[in-house]
């Protein structure tokens, strides 16, 4: 397969190397002459030191017989133009664009780019998966005696679902005063039955935050809680037990196995004596 790669940055460079290794015919276009020379020095004379946006250089690179054009420069507008030129001017069957601004994805698709790769979107999606959904959100600090306005969005598994504020052990320094349900704010009565998806708005002192979270959203499995500090508990606590456990288990395993194995090979008397 003949693949034309445009853009010799990190993506284009590694992409070209992989494709060459896989036995494909590749031409890489990189407009920065120094960078192009550097890559050519390593992977051979398949690098053209020209701007892949420019029509005549695309033609010179053999764009009209390419099976695939991959536009992987750092500039969205360049990648769009490369793909459009490839597709509509050179009749390339398949165009692939790297898109940095996620807002451009729809436009690119609409404008006929066959495949859109958005690293920003991928990383964003990955981070969003890691963001704990059952955490408290600090809406505002009132500046008076450490009071904070806090939001808790109830998940289907949250302990407060199906219960009312009067059944919950809310710390005395804290008060639940409203619930946002289906986009509408309502005052929270003592007998309002909470549902999954509700956003419970509370006001309270910083130190009651962990109790509040346990009651509304459920605490972290190990319940170990650095008390007080709103900032650390907001993002730190949920990851702390997980990352605390994981290395713990490993080091425990290594600790129990390692020395024993070491003992037997070393022939040290520790175990043998027992």
């Amino acid at each position, binding site marked *: 397969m003949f693949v034309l790669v445009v853009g010799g940055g990190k993506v284009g460079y590694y992409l070209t190397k992989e494709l060459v290794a896989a036995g494909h015919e590749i031409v890489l276009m990189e407009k920065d002459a120094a960078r192009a020379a550097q890559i050519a020095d390593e992977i051979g004379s398949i690098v053209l030191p020209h701007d892949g*946006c*420019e*029509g*005549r250089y*695309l*033609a010179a690179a053999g764009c009209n017989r390419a099976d695939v054009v991959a536009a992987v420069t750092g*500039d*969205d*507008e*360049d990648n*769009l*133009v490369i793909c*459009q*030129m490839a597709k*509509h*001017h050179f009749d390339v069957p398949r165009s692939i664009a790297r898109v940095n*601004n996620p*807002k451009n994805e*729809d*436009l690119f*698709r*609409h*404008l*006929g780019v066959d495949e859109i790769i958005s690293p920003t979107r991928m990383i964003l999606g990955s981070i969003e998966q890691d963001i704990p959904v059952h955490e408290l959100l600090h809406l505002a600090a009132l500046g008076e005696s450490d009071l904070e306005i806090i939001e808790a969005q109830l998940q289907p598994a949250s302990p407060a679902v199906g219960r009312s504020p009067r059944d919950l052990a809310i710390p005395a320094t804290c008060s639940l005063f409203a619930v946002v349900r289906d986009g509408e704010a309502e005052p929270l009565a003592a007998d309002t039955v909470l549902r999954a998806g509700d956003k419970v708005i509370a006001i309270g002192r910083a130190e009651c935050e962990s109790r509040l979270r346990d009651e509304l959203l459920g605490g972290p499995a190990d319940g170990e809680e650095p008390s007080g500090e709103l900032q650390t508990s907001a993002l730190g606590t949920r990851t702390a037990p997980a990352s605390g456990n994981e290395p713990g288990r490993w080091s425990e395993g290594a600790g129990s196995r390692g020395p024993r194995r070491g003992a037997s090979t070393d022939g040290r008397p520790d175990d043998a004596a027992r």
Partner: protein
Amino acid sequence: MNAVIVGCGRVGALLAETLDAAGHDVLVVDTQTLAFERLPATFSGRAIRGDGTDEDVLRRAGAEHADLFLAFTEGDNRNIIAAQLATEVLGASRVVAKVNDPVRATAYADLGIATLCRTNLMADAINAYLGLAQQYPSGVQVPTGHHPGGEHHEAPGAVGRGVAVPAEET
């Protein structure tokens, strides 16, 4: 007439001044505030700092449904993406993009974007000065085709697909 000009360089600023003086409603967008110093003190239109290739920026600036949308930044590709946004998404009726690469200028005219190619214009201006034959497309290259993308996909947030009307020669 409602005119949006992306890129307040010499040409953009000059056109902004001319259109404004002629009584049109002019919006100029540039990424640098400094560029607006090219506008005369008498300019009564709006000048917005922002990326004219960003749909949100253009919408916030009120660039939707422009009667005239000129993409005149220094970058061919930025002009092309801005012009396509204007045509496909923002419902502009007349769109012209400055594209200095002759190949791209013709290719995008074929794709439904009116283009203006400085390379062709200047080469032919010199040809004319020397008494030689004109060789290149002159003036604005009117769109000869439609964007094929529109046949298969719904324009993102499109109110209606604006078709670039051939610009009049003036």
